[in-house]
């Protein structure tokens, strides 16, 4: 049973890049950052670390130490984007699977083994431009289309260890996975002048590279939890596949630091804040220095109200907001993403049932802006979490 779940998750991870939505900000650098957050973290505007209660997140590897049941978790993320570039409007939508995780506690040693597959960069986008060209002595319409399909994800194995009642540490190692295919298509519409097929040329690259992460979770007070993580990335290598010409391309991906804190304000109300930082420099890599913004900071704040209950089950309501810098410029300007978040947790199994069956829903309304491009979007996150002895 557990093997079947594992294979299913890996299969989803492999296909997940093909289901990603798009943003035109993804046309820059390594694509649009796509954090592997679950529905609860999204709803709270969190960076994914320092949340109250047990959680299963590749960004907070130590948090799994408080999971006492073998648990599987899957997050779906549909999104709908409206944008405007130089007065031209665009609409896109799509779904991705930003996070899939398994946790297997070994109670005898006081820790939990975890497996995470999470997205890092969304590289699925497609743009078209139209022009005129003289063919066969006539000016005919020409459409150029560049499509990018794929993304960068991380496959991570880790261990979270409880050290007493208040402290947990986590460590994980992993590998970048994913690929991207870029396809250029030119369609010449010569009408009755000639029978013309589209011109198509493409390239495909597979990503690889080592990653490692460390994290902690500490409850200095019964009403306060602190969490943090550092995610190191070795050189990200993009290796040509198939008939794609050229040599491998290396990218320097910076270490990312995340901090989060949660405090219990009342027995049913909690406050959460988070912050993250990464310094995007690529002195020896292949990213155009002009596209790198340097320091990338994000912060978020949210509240969780655990009042609504039905019998032994509770349905916490969450609200929050988050501001994130994007690491790659657009037309020379630094883009940022601002979102208002909200959501609800559906804990379908009562705590005493010996089962975990929960759904976390999150809704985000956000904007991204830089230079002549602006986007507003709705993003939903649905996390399914099941656990059992």
């Amino acid at each position, binding site marked *: 049973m557990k093997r079947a779940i594992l294979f299913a998750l890996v299969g989803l991870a492999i296909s997940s890049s093909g289901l990603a939505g798009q943003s035109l900000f993804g046309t820059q650098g390594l694509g649009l950052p796509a954090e592997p957050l679950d529905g609860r973290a999204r709803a709270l505007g969190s960076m994914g670390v320092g949340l109250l209660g047990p959680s299963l997140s590749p960004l907070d590897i130590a948090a799994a130490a408080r999971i006492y049941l073998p648990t599987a978790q899957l997050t779906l993320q549909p999104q*709908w984007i409206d944008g405007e570039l130089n007065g031209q409007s*665009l609409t896109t939508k799509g779904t991705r699977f930003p996070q899939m995780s398994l946790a297997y506690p070994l109670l005898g040693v006081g820790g939990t083994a975890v497996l995470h597959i999470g997205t890092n960069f969304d590289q699925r986008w497609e743009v078209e431009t139209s022009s005129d060209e003289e063919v066969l002595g006539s000016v005919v319409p020409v459409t150029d289309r560049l499509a990018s399909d794929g993304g960068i994800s991380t496959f991570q194995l880790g261990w979270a260890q409880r050290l007493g009642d208040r402290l947990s540490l986590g460590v994980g190692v992993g590998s970048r996975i994913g690929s991207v295919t870029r396809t*250029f298509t*030119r369609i010449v519409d010569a009408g009755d002048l000639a029978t013309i*097929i589209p011109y198509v040329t493409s390239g495909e690259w597979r990503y690889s590279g080592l990653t490692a992460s460390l994290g902690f979770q500490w409850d200095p007070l019964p009403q306060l939890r602190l969490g943090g993580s550092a995610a190191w990335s070795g050189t990200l290598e993009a290796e040509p596949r198939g008939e794609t010409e050229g040599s491998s391309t290396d990218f320097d991906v910076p270490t990312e630091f995340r901090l989060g804190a949660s405090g219990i304000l009342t027995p049913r109300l909690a406050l959460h804040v988070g912050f993250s930082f990464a310094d995007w420099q690529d002195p020896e890599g292949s990213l155009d220095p002009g596209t790198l913004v340097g320091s990338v900071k994000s912060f978020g704040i949210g509240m969780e109200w655990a009042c609504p209950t039905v019998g032994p089950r509770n349905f916490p309501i969450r609200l929050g907001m988050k501001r994130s810098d994007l690491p790659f410029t657009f037309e020379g300007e630094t883009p940022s993403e601002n979102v208002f978040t909200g959501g609800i947790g559906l804990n379908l199994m009562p705590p005493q*049932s010996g089962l975990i069956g929960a759904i976390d829903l999150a809704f985000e309304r956000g904007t991204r802006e830089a230079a002549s491009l602006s986007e507003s979007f709705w993003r939903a996150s649905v996390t399914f979490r099941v656990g059992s002895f």
Partner: protein
Amino acid sequence: MTPSMHRANGLKRSALAVLLTTGVWAVGGCQEEITATLDGDLVPVDAVTVDVTLPFSEFARDLEGWGGYGRPHELSQDIVARSFEGSLDARVLNGFYPYPVYATVKDSTGVFVADSALTFVGGRVVVRFDTISAVHDGPVEIAVGALPREWDYRSVGWDVAVDSVGDRQLWDEAGAGPVIPLGTVIWDPAEGDSAVIEVDSAHIALFADTAAAEAGVRLDVVTEGARLDLAGMTYQLDTRPSVHPDTLVTLFVTNRWRSFIYDPVPDPPAGEIRVGGVPAWRSVFTFEMPDSLYGPTELCEAVGCPLALTGQSLISASLILTSRAPPAAFQPVDSLFMDVRPVLEPSRLPKSPLGSSLLLTGGVLLAPEDFQGEAGAEIEIPLGSYVEGLILEKTDPDLDIPKTLALLSSFEPLSLYFGAFEGPDSPDGPKLRLILTFADEIGIR
């Protein structure tokens, strides 16, 4: 069931309902809409599209015309003509099976019986024409005569009654003559599509002979300048059955074979491409694609020369033919479909087997107007996949693309008329038109 079990079941049901609802909603967003059509420089790939036209000598060689495919009897319609367009004569020959030997009639008790004691008291040949394709204004005179000798429907011609291996028999008179006149009739297309030529009892008796019936009749049009398409011919006999002598019964004599002969036969094509006709013509040539292009100037300015041809850059390849008018009597009066098929064993021409059509549509539609008057219409025959194969073959030894192609009518034979195109020696000779696109190499950065 205990209350706790009820609660547990209720929990499971509500959990399942929530999971299903949420899953359907989430997966509903999976439908991708990702293309953004935008003006501006968001496609960081420079591309250029150019077209190149190669004369016949630069892409092919050895144009030949081959004829003799199919016979007139294979056509669905036969033709009669007299000095059509000042030159074409055509006659229809129709042989019959022996007369029926019995008729099924009711006897005095109302029972159907086979009556073999027949007395033929009259007869007629009924011919039906295609009034739409008939080329003549007003009534025309039709003549029917009995053929005096046997003929072979598969090889019969204007001069020969039989033309098979080891057996060549000429008509006594060119044009399947002489015939024993059976009668004539004036047929007015305005009054209907059929004409009836009465056959007298003497000639009815003549055709009672099996050999004479097999020889059959010759249908001719007497009016100068007329050309008619025969849609059908029947020979009907009137008989009085012995069981009911006062009743007239009409019997049909079954047609055995039919064909038509015509004169003059077009000369073999010289310096032209010809497809169609009956027997049908095919034009065969051999592709010899260049490795690189050295012009024209526009191409070299755009992408540099010499330019190595690659399959990837090829987005269109078409054979361009310029139509010319065939002799007036053989100009198409309806659409032709021209096909292109590889010749699999050129050394066995004209009997080489052909490969499958290179055209997705099974043929290029040729309008009759393309071959009338000044003609000169440019006909595009798309050969993109084939030419791409020829280019790829130069670097892929596993490919073996037939180089010799046949241009032919999609259906052979289709008609007496045929299509003609300018040959390689003409300034408007066959051309190969290539449209190429070149783009920057796709990168990941």
